């Protein structure tokens, strides 16, 4: 066991971790940030996506120790400073981009990473980017729509619906 320190959602945090403790377990169990979900345990589903030093990372593929000193952002840190929903969060709400909600935190984190690099993605780019995020409920339609809307694009034509 060692003490690990990192900045999480803008705050200095520390906790105990073994060398083999995964970042996702550290966030959920040590820091009680349970918004980051575990869907597959094996880096396929994307429910655990967080940002580490600005990059989207599946938190089940990284050791907590590797994030020592890093800047980590989880879904809990995505709202605006005044607590209101961010544009992406609001778009998921407005466009029904969720059902059971289990994939939602990972989707929001992936969407944010996409829009940072590519502020006006095409629909095909959104779909391609989200290949690492599984949603079993929605059929993805409204997720794509929400992300297009969050990028400020007209969604009336998304998939001709």
């Amino acid at each position: 066991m060692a003490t690990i320190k990192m900045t999480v959602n803008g705050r200095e945090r520390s906790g105990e971790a073994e060398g083999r403790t995964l970042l996702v377990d550290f966030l959920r169990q040590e820091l009680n940030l349970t918004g980051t979900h575990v869907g597959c345990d094996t880096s396929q589903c994307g429910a655990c996506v967080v940002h580490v030093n600005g990059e989207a990372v599946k938190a089940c593929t990284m050791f907590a120790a590797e994030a020592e000193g890093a800047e980590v952002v989880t879904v809990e840190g995505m709202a605006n400073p005044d607590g209101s929903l961010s544009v992406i969060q609001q778009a998921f709400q407005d466009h029904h981009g969720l059902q059971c909600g289990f994939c939602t935190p990972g989707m929001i984190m992936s969407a944010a990473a996409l829009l940072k690099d590519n502020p006006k993605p095409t629909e095909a780019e959104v779909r391609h980017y989200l290949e690492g995020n599984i949603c079993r409920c929605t059929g993805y339609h409204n997720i794509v729509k929400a992300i297009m809307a969050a990028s400020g694009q007209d969604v009336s034509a998304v998939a001709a619906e």
Partner: protein
Amino acid sequence: MSVTKPLPHDSGPLHVTGQARYVDDIPTPANCLHLAFGTSSIARGTVTAMDLDPVRTAPGVVAVLTADDLPFANDVSPSIHDEPLLSVGTVHYVGQPIFVVAATSHHAARRAAAKARITYAEEAPILTVDQAVAAGQYFDDGPRVWQKGDTDAALAAAPHRLRGRLEMGGQEHFYLESHASMVAPQEGGDVVVYSSTQHPTEIQHKVAEALGVPMNAVRVEARRMGGGFGGKESQGNALACACAVIAVKTGRPVKMRYDRDDDMTITGKRHDFRIDYDVGFDDTGRIKGIDFQQYTRGGWALDLTIPVADRAMLHADNAYLLDHARITSHRLRTNTQSATAYRGFGGPQGIFGIERVMDHIAHTLGLDPIAVRQVNYYHNMGPVRAGKVSGNTTPYGMEVRDFILDEMTEKLLADANYADRKAAIADWNAKNPILKRGIGFSPVKFGISFTLTHLNQAGALVHVYQDGSIHLNHGGTEMGQGLFQKVAQVAASRFGVDVSLVKITATDTGKVPNTSATAASSGSDLNGMAAKAACDTIRDRMANCLAELHQCPVERVRFEDGKVRVGDNEMTFEQAAATCYQNRVSLSATGFYKTPDLSWDRAKGQGRPFFYFSHGAALTEVVIDTLTGENRILRTDIIHDVGRSLNPALDKGQVEGAFVQGAGWLTTEELVWDDKGRLRTHAPSTYKIPACSDRPEVFNVELWDGENPEATIYRSKAVGEPPFNLGMSAFFALSDAAAACGPNYPMLDAPATAERVLQAVKRARG
């Protein structure tokens, strides 16, 4: 009124901020134990020796239990006590729990469980349909047969006759949240159970049996699931029972979450089916007589195989009027996971059988597959209800009085421009030797109600507080489908208030008892009605009180727009609640509902098992690569019947999600067991769930503008399962594309993976 409005999911703001709590997110008490099962590595045999010392001495381990250590019932079956929580010495599938480890962390428990040394006397497992039939391994003492008319005579007299076989795989639920339970011990041996379950009452029942206590000593709470799809109807029993037994034994809170691999290896999946058909038909493709043999592998324990197989029989007709039909169902016991409920509950398997028949007939006669379907449709509800048509009955003797697929089909074909696109595809195929396009259609008529009639009941509990806020509870569970939101909209509408006044609360066996599983698409039908009854009781009491106070007839008390109008007086709902409280009116009520007019004789296969039918139709276009079998869905158009929608946004979301899941079942999702009975596809790396890029490039979903002719809640219809069947249109489009490669019928089986598409192309070429 808030019903019929496309309001967002009530938990949306919690989900997007990560605050929504699933079972594994509930803050765990410091001394919580975590469990893992040690499971069988062989498919069939007897345990001859078991050395658990390495498990007991592994780091963090607090207790290890085998069947001998269970104090009371060792059973987690939802049906006939044939499913021990822990093996009693014989093992029946790879993955069967044999012992359970309690440790200080999830990972410690899993690591310890892997250290057991178990030896077995192995027997040859029964894995396939053929092996099970040969060994006489039947549930339900042999095949079940339901029939209508004289099938043999009709087959013999028909101008054309065709025989075929369709194989279809099962399906892993892959709810994104794997199974989880937590049990907190209480004083006096009571327990509180938090479970990711569609069936809190069953969890309560099985935990009570496992602890040897009455049901009133067990309270189960379920706020939400991260997806269920039927996979959490019975499969959560094992986790809850294991946690409860160890919680009582140790006096500590206990949690168990299946790692994804464990979840896929241990829990049941959709039933796979083989369907053999023998059909006689005329020159138009109209079916004269049909014989179906349905074979399904139920796995090692009964679970829900009987009602699943029944529903497959009940949907063998799908949308088609069959005058002479015989349906034989073989429910087979195999050494695999116990197959369980999955969205559609056997219905899709039955429907898929006759849809293949329609396609096969059309190819044989050189007719349009949609035209063949149309000549076989049931009669429209207009003439039937007007008494102009009789004999519009299903093979199980139920009159079909609400059929609308003929109209829906016409609209879909027109909106999606079918005729032109079909011609364009033929042209395109003529010019393209390697890539081939195909177009496929599938309709669905789906029966709504539990076929076990007594399950069609629901309860609700509503409180109005003196500040006018409303507390709503009912027996349904939330798995993402938006049930809580819909029922809240119903409650808000009854009181004429904004839905924000209604607090939605976790399903709780202490508030509403004896609930049925949230299954069979019945959630909003049953719980919406129960909540309405509770609200109306309170509203009537309030109206009587206010009418008396204001000396006006009770009919002149109205609840609308957030106001209560009493004759010429007007007050806020909050003022009305306060006034009623001060006048000692009870502002709490239960509501109860049971579906009317059901009668079903399962042994004979006769009666009215369903309250009504839901309908839908889909048209899908695909392209395949004839060198590799790879394929893409290009476009899907859907029109779906949800009666008068309680919430069009949620309903459309259900239709979209169901279509993609249904298409996944029949295309990419392949379960593979090896000849030792080991499931080789136990993670999403090997089991292919549709990804975001797999969905149709063009996807048009429309809700049919209509209302339920039966008196359901605000004339709405169920939505969870019926649209799942629309994924079949993708399968038939793939078959159509393969058929464009040669003169023969491709005889495509499901799932239509690239390999199977390639084989189908070869068969088409001959």
